[in-house]
């Protein structure tokens, strides 16, 4: 399933040691969790599409906006891309400059990725989780409501998306860091 493994050259002529089974099981568990949840999250597009279409029909059939559509549209769209970020990470969808990176040996790629995950990714996602969680709790405490429409739905489920997305990214980040370390140490992607 991991399409990233294609295009990455196997190192050296000598037979490399196989990836330890426990490591493989660890990576497999995380990756399939992200794959499976990502597949579910992708289906958020269907209600998004239906809501948008219903709004147009509502306006022309009944002559007025659906009271709920505006809020539902941004909530679905915002949840879609944030919760999909971990899935995108797994499938190497977050793009990078390739002019130096792709021509480097695998160990160097592993080094860059290890530095990126340990030095950049984890600290940022940790704070996204922490402050996102605080923000979510504020919304719960106040029973905060949307001011974008007269409907004014409660916001806490939507506010839960940021910490949830950060958590999912952290989990997938564990798997990606392990893969990078593996590349750094063995010169081969698992």
């Amino acid at each position: 399933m991991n399409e990233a493994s294609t295009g990455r050259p196997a190192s050296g002529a000598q037979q490399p040691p196989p990836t330890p089974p426990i490591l493989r099981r660890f990576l497999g568990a995380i990756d399939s969790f992200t794959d499976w949840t990502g597949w579910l999250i992708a289906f958020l597009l269907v209600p998004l599409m239906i809501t948008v279409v219903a709004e147009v029909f509502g306006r022309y059939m009944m002559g007025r906006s659906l009271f709920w559509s505006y809020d539902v549209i941004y909530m679905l769209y915002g949840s879609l891309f944030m919760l999909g970020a971990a899935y995108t990470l797994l499938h190497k969808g977050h793009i990078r400059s390739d002019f130096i990176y792709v021509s480097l040996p695998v160990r160097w790629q592993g080094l860059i990725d290890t530095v990126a995950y340990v030095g950049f990714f984890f600290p940022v996602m940790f704070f996204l989780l922490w402050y996102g969680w605080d923000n979510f709790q504020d919304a719960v405490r106040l029973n905060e409501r949307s001011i974008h429409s007269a409907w004014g739905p409660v916001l806490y489920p939507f506010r839960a998306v940021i910490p949830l997305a950060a958590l999912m990214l952290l989990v997938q980040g564990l798997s990606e860091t392990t893969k990078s370390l593996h590349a750094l140490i063995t010169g081969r992607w698992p």
Partner: protein
Amino acid sequence: QDTYRMRIQAAVPSGAMSFEMLERFGERLEIMSNGEFDVRVLPGGAIVPSNQILDSVSDGVLEAGFAWPQFWSGKHPATALFSNTPVWAMAGLDSLTHLSWMYEGGGIDLYHELLQDEIGVNVVSFFVTPSGWQPLGWFNKPIESMADMDGLRYRTPPGLVGEIFDEAGVSTVFIGPQELVPAAERGVVDAAGWINPVEDYPLGFHDIFSHYYLASVHQWTDTGEIVINRDFWDGLPDTHKEMVRTAAMATILETYTKDISRNADMIRRFEEEFGIEVHPTPADINSQLVQAGERVINRHAADSAIYKNIVDSQIEFARKVKPSWGEVLRAYDSLAEDALID
């Protein structure tokens, strides 16, 4: 010598009149403090989106922010009562008596109670820009009664105002500010309410619509506030605190004087330069909005104790001032009929 850097992010673009008022507010502080205040006014969206200003000031991301209390109505619906309150049948505060209620009738204290205790943000608030009445808005054909609003897709602001139009049975469409101009240009909406003549001009509604309906009771006043981070405020010496209070009072007066004069100029420009037909909002619409407003307000008051406290305080104040102030308005209105100008 200490300097106090104060970043004020506004909820309006830098071309707006209230932005100019804020810059004047900042200049006053800098001059009065002999340069110890260093004020920078930032336009809407520069650092945070408008609906996040309160949180960002409370967190200390910004030292201060400018917006209208109804922007926080998602945190508590009662905030709207301090700014864009409708004229509802029982109380009938106009924009000046509403301001009087805030200063003399305990409104400001109630507002701080709401912000600090109920919502729990770490800010102090100063009212600065009581921009007066708001138009019903822009239309493509004349309307005479609520019945003519039937089947028109009318864009309203969200929040309390949207609720009132909804309650009155208007086919409201809510389209965000970024999509509104193209939507109006291409006829996705048939009519639109925005802010007031001076602030409507830059968006170019007069290039799209041909009729403009003035003061409507869905919103009789709209008082902007500066919220200041409380730690920043507590760190100011008493002299500087007094400068802020004084500059705020001066801004209130300047907003009043400029608002009346500039909106009048702009309405004349709409008529003479762009051929817009300007009308008063039909009495039938106003009376139905008053009744709808009352129903909406009562519904909220039944849900929340502090909402009810605030409404009761406004009603009590209105009962006190209405006999004398109302008499002044009536007398003035009848005088105007015979006035020298036409």
